[in-house]
């Protein structure tokens, strides 16, 4: 299997889906002539022309709405946000329009579209360019939310997202664009709602997605050196959420730490913890623990940024806590 980057995997998914289906088009700022702010759309303009790789002015609300309208009448738009931070000026289209149209119209209008782009903290880009949006969008019925952590998942999940008949919020991690891994060529579809066990273990379940999977795996290696056997689970899609796999894992380990780079208050981890205690209270040997970013806008200074985000040491400490080793 070829080893390619997360960026190249996304590019392959876009290319293959645009080749397969003429109604798929990509729209966003700098996606065409500039070849993508993060080069995810490299080469697509040359292959598919300006008709299907559409550069936009800086008008997220406007072009997201154009996507919703185009989707209502039969196209399959992929709307790229240069960063999900800018989805905030388009959030009315995502929530009030894309997510609600199907039910509001009693099933007459499907919205087969993807909103995609980098999300989560990058490196030292400051408070307005560094935050996580999983919890914002997971809250909304009518949206699907996907956060790939590997190149293979990036490709397989994006292809699934483009083929979905409903709006999908597809959040990539800027910090993962250069990461590499084996990616199947051609038809490779990863279904939504199927978690993956990244590492099998018996003593504690660690749940993480996107960039945090990497950090958690590193923590698991460190824990192993301490004689603690951790299982690592990546839900991959956050809505639908594969709670069954999490329950199964926690029933086995009896302990759970949820790691997310978002804030704690109303974070997705809180919902997962709630569902776990309801489904497997009798199996839990300790309350479910969470590791999140600190409850502040992201500071610029590198040392402070590190301090705010979940680190390997924070995860190790949380695991020790649920094992009553601290």
């Amino acid at each position, binding site marked *: 299997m070829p080893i390619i980057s997360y960026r190249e995997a996304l590019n392959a998914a876009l290319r293959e889906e645009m080749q397969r289906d003429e109604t798929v088009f990509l729209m966003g700022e700098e996606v065409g002539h500039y070849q993508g702010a993060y080069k995810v759309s490299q080469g697509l303009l040359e292959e598919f022309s300006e008709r299907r790789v559409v550069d936009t002015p800086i008008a997220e609300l*406007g072009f997201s709405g154009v996507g919703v309208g185009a989707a209502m009448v039969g196209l399959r738009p992929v709307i790229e946000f240069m960063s999900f931070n800018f989805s905030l000026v388009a959030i009315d289209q995502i929530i009030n*329009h894309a997510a609600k149209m199907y039910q509001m119209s009693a*099933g007459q209008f499907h919205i087969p579209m993807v909103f995609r782009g980098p999300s989560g903290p990058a490196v030292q880009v400051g408070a307005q360019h560094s935050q996580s949006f999983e919890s914002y969008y997971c809250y909304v*019925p*009518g949206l699907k939310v996907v956060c790939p952590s590997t190149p293979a998942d990036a490709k397989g999940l994006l292809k699934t997202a483009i083929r979905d008949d409903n709006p999908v919020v597809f959040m990539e991690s800027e910090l993962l664009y250069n990461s590499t891994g084996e990616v199947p060529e051609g038809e490779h579809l990863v279904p939504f709602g199927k978690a993956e066990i990244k590492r099998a273990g018996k003593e504690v379940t660690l749940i993480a997605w996107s960039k945090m999977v990497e950090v958690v795996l590193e923590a698991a290696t460190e824990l192993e050196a301490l004689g603690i056997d951790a299982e690592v689970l990546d839900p991959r899609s956050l809505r639908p959420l594969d709670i069954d796999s999490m329950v199964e894992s926690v029933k086995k380990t009896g302990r759970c730490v949820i790691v997310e780079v978002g804030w704690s208050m109303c974070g997705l981890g809180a919902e997962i913890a709630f569902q776990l205690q309801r489904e497997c209270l009798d199996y839990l040997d300790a309350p479910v623990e969470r590791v999140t970013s600190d409850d502040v806008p992201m500071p610029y200074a590198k040392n402070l940024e590190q301090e705010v985000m979940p680190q390997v040491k924070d995860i190790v400490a949380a695991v020790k806590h649920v094992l009553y080793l601290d």
Partner: protein
Amino acid sequence: MLAGAMSSRADIRIEPDTPENLEATTEEELLPLYKTMLSIRRLEEASAKAYSVGKIGGFLHLAIGQEAVCTGAVAALRPEDYITSTYREHGHIYARGVSARAILAEMWGKKTGVVKGLGGSMHMFSKEHNFLGGHGIVGGHVPIAVGAAFKAKYHGEKRVSAVFFGDGSATIGGFAEGLALAALWKLPVVFICENNQYSMGTPLYRTTAAPDITQRALAHDMDRDRFDGDDVIKVKRRIALAVERARETNRPTLIEVRTYRFRGHSMSDPGLYRTREEVAEWKKGDPLVRAKRRLIEELGVDEEKIKAIAAEVKDEIADAVRFADTSPASDSYLPYVIKE
């Protein structure tokens, strides 16, 4: 055709509605339009009555007084053209061909409603009629209409997308961005601002420093037009110019039609921010009265014929009310939950 109508630069003024300014018409053309307007009026009156006894809940926005705009505009479009509207959309969807039964049953929250009781007064859709809603967020639907036009051009279809919005939308981002993108990409959109002088209780002069809404077109080198909307034939003719321009050249147009709602913003609004005299003055331009006068005085239509139409409309709406009353309640949203 008025000189200003095709120009993107001319200072467009409201033309006085003097007889010489009126577009010629025929009985064949005007009579059905009159009937549509009358049906819309009666339909909305029936819904106001139903609201007062609790058969309709939530918000109910009536467009009584504005009927010539939706009726004339829809008449200028072809069935394959797309229409997107606001929460004040009963007239638009009726003129498009959705039955009074389906519209009233929707407001009643019944299973037989046009969206099975899931949308209500503000959110009506009909795919079959290329009617893309019924939207409740001011300005949010404008880029959606631009998206429908994007698709038409994408597939090389000669299809136009018309979007209706209020004067209050002229200041919001969705409108500004939708306008900018349609102009930039040369998309076949006809933007129709129904300037009824108020956004809720706020008169236009208190919401914008540039009360000629079509001035926004100048920023995008877009064609524009601006006129009074109480003569349905005039509305149809003027909008037809923009529709044909869009269909043939993909050039969008921003149109402002001056009109007036005779009732409050919604049922809960007694309209205390405007004087009785002001309302009375505008009522002189009632589009139904004008159309009827033209039919009788100008076209020599027999008054009995008009009475017969009124009787037909009365029956149509009474039947729709009965239908809504006796239809089963909306029973389930489950079929329309997106499967995960």
